[in-house]
């Protein structure tokens, strides 16, 4: 653990946690479907940053890049499915309000 390592951990850590918190806040507090999806994206971006930073700091850049690219592809698949669901909900409900989706209870 050299000097550069220990000084960079808080730097990357701060921004990763910041992105993570913004994303989570966006997912939990938004009332609009599209905003929830954007929140998910921000959340995942924080994680991607963390992976890249981890690869850089441990000297395994190639491994981290592979992981990040795979992550981006999979995230697109998830968001595409989510967008499909949102479109179907919009067609039924004619509204993008998350709070209207509260039928299932018990």
């Amino acid at each position: 653990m050299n000097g550069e390592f220990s000084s960079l951990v808080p730097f990357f850590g701060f921004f990763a946690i910041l992105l993570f918190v913004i994303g989570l806040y966006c997912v939990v507090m938004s009332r609009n479907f599209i905003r929830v999806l954007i929140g998910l994206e921000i959340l995942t971006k924080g994680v991607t940053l963390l992976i890249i930073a981890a690869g850089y700091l441990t000297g395994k850049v190639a491994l981290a890049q592979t992981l990040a690219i795979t992550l981006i592809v999979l995230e697109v698949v998830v968001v595409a499915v989510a967008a499909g669901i949102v479109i179907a909900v919009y067609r039924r409900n004619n509204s993008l309000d998350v709070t209207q989706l509260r039928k299932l209870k018990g």
Partner: protein
Amino acid sequence: MKEAMNLPNQLILLPLLAVVVVNLPLGLRWAAMLGGVFFSIYQMWTMVFLPPLETGFFDLQIDGLSRVLLLSIGLVAFVSILAARGTIRDKRERFYFYNLVLLAMVGMNGLVMVRDLFSLYVFIEITSVASFILIALRRELDGLEGAFKYLIMSAVATAMMLSAVALLLLATGETSFAKVAEQMRLGGSGLPVLAAGLFVAGLLIKAGSVPFHGWLPDAYMAAPNAASILLGGIVTKTTGVYALIRLMQDGMFGTGMSPVLLLAGAVSIVAGALAALGQRDFKRMLAYSSISQVGYIVLSLGTGTALGVVGAVFHLFNHAVFKSLLFVNATAVEDRAGTRDMNQLGGLAARMPVTGFASVVALLSTAGVPPLAGFWSKLVIIVALYKSGHPVYAAVAVLASLLTLAYFLSMQRRVFFGKLREGLEGVKEAGWYVLVPTLALTLITMGVGVLIPWMFGSFVLPMEKF
């Protein structure tokens, strides 16, 4: 070339190939169901008879634990495909269903064979995406709501798990299970503990354990019946619980997570059972029962002993069998009587004798009544808890069995026993596509229970040797 098609690779590539071939414009759409049925039977066959030794792509390996899981995956997928043939009327929907089940099988088969944290994430995601679409398949508002809730919770869980992977990469510079575990044993605190906490929380969300269970009843209830069988029987158990078992087994987290798992397990058992008592909807009750049973598995895992792991895996297998059976029964009831509301049902055992009997067998197995399969796995769990010095948790596990029996007997009385409700006189026994899985699962539940002296030596204990 011969190596490229060894068993681990086959289990990933064959279903993928089947999906590609039936979707090409060759007029082979009718073959989707046959492909699914043959592949799931092939998977069960190889898991029962072949000694699994080979290593596939990405370091895929089959060991005792994977073998049990692969067997359960084959079984539940087989049941779910047949039930879909019997209950989904729309031809296009049915075709999509078979494809998605095959894709979910690709994900789950890969998931139980990988030896690397990042590949684990990739296969979890494949399975989850297939299940989101399965839940939303009918494009009704209920299904869409269930799928969206599952998707959001699952995406947050994924983010937590990936942060944990990044932290482990930072702490150890590796992602393969063996190497990370080796580095973790050399010592380390702070970062690895945070990583373990994040990872376990993510997996508990995926497994639907209390306090992260909010999405699970909605998703199970809103899904098409045949998809509920797959989800309740195996999907959440592989993506959440199996991954937890594997990581604990490989010593990734040390023993620091044991108290958390014990507490989460015990709370899940009691809360799930209490919530199940108050349900009117057949499938929603089964979903809460699922939460309660997952609690047993997590509790057993929390002991951190070899016997605890055996109990967890054995209960996971039994749960796959009896919970699929109960969901098949719910499918048969809704298909014939037209409702899942238990207050509007009654006396169906007279009209549907096979389903009624199978339901009794499944509920007694779930509640842990000897000599059915569920009794033996619960016995292993309770012994493991007692031996590892947790008599209070063992007592909770025993007493919660009474709660289980209570809500299931209430279900049985309201749906199958008593006088036949008006308007249900015309109900007939379910068709063969539903009856064959019902009978097969009933026989397995009884067979595992009765043949336990033979099973225990050849099937249950080898799971311990990893």
